[in-house]
């Protein structure tokens, strides 16, 4: 019957779409290159909270920091060990970017890989980019 061809075409298209991710990656994928810790960060050894928590929680921490700074005017963060940090993303040597001074190799690497577009940079800038 003539509609069999049509049905087969439809099924082929459907399966093609379905397995497209496999086909696309047949040539092998580019391996993810881990973000690079700057010399300064390496030397510090410890961020504001442990690395594993930082990996998944940093967006919350930054958001709470923003609210605390903007609404309450407080600029000091105390972590569970009692250590104090300045709450700032990009201003000065004691800010996040002051330590992680390689945004492209540090922040962007993961964000780009996972297709995440934080709106930090709607307001903030990477101090390196200004000059």
């Amino acid at each position, binding site marked *: 019957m003539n509609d069999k061809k049509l049905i087969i075409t439809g*099924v082929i298209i459907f399966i093609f779409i379905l397995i497209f991710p496999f086909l696309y990656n047949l040539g092998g994928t580019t391996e*993810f290159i881990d973000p690079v810790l700057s010399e300064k960060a390496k030397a510090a050894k410890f961020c504001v909270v442990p690395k594993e928590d930082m990996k998944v929680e940093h967006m919350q921490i930054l958001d709470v920091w923003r609210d605390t700074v903007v609404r309450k005017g407080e600029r000091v963060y105390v972590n569970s060990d009692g250590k104090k940090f300045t709450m700032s993303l990009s201003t000065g040597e004691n800010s996040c970017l002051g330590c992680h001074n390689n945004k492209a190799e540090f922040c962007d690497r993961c964000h780009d890989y996972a297709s995440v577009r934080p709106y930090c940079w709607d307001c903030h800038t990477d101090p390196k980019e200004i000059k």
Partner: protein
Amino acid sequence: MNVNYMLSFIIVLALCLLSYLGGEAPGLRYLFGIAIPYLAIVIFIFGFISRVMGWARSAVPFRIPTTCGQQKSLPWIKPNRIDNPFSKSAVILRMILEIVCFRSLFRNTRMAFKNTKTGMRIAYDWEIFLWVAALAFHYTFLVVLLRHLRFFFDPVPFCIQILEFFDGFLKIEFLSNVIQVGLPGIYISGVILLAAVTFLFLRRIFSPKVRYISLPADFFPLFLIMGIAITGIMMRYFTKVDIVGIKEFTMGLVSFSPALPEGVGGLFYVHIFLVSVLLAYFPSSKLMHLGGIFLSPTRNMTADTRATRHVNPWNHPVKVHTYEQYEDEFREKMIEAGLPVEKKE
């Protein structure tokens, strides 16, 4: 307590538990993370093909569209081109509207007996909730599915980024030190999907008619999808997972060089296992309406049978009562009544 949904609920719960343990036990991670997902995809593809080709093998002996509007007849009568399609292009339009907009479901009415002064009146009101929920469910499911493509492409295609942008358009954030919702940014599709699935579930529970017709097979996929949505939402907004690690894992899967992610907990294994179960279950279930709707003869055929002959591939000859046999039996009476006959004796 309804045995049908309890049964499905218990099965899905057991599946969750099983895969959670599987994800937590290092020895089983390979099975739940790699072997089962691959197997599920293979079952889905071959199952889907065999089901559709099974339908394709069956003949379409008659052209039986359900005509839902005025036919094309006299030139001065306006035909309903979509609901009574006379041409192939009209059928395509009808099918697109059916598949993309759920046109038939859009017509849905609710019947109610109403007491009036002059007695009982049966009223039929437009009932749109099922259509809204169905549409919301299917489209958000699609968006969620497409959004997940970010795990399978590197770099992530621009169109997926656009989709993520619009899906994440509502920047709802509620962040206190106690409860934190909204980061990473809320994808509205996931929320609507869960709401729609819940509505469809509650409808099956609370509408007496729908409850009576529901089988375990109707609750099972709802619970599965609910489980998938809940674990996904949990991972994204609450328990948090190492997203980069997961993408490395999924990229490994699609490039046939799978490697288990490190430091990813049981919840992720529940998520991926439920998806695998859904995929493997799909071809042997009612979910095949995805393919079947394209082949429904009451919708995908032209309503022009009187103008263009449809050919039945198995048009068997049948025994008929011929005019000669008829005249032989009634000839005398026909002659007597003055009716013309072929053979006069």
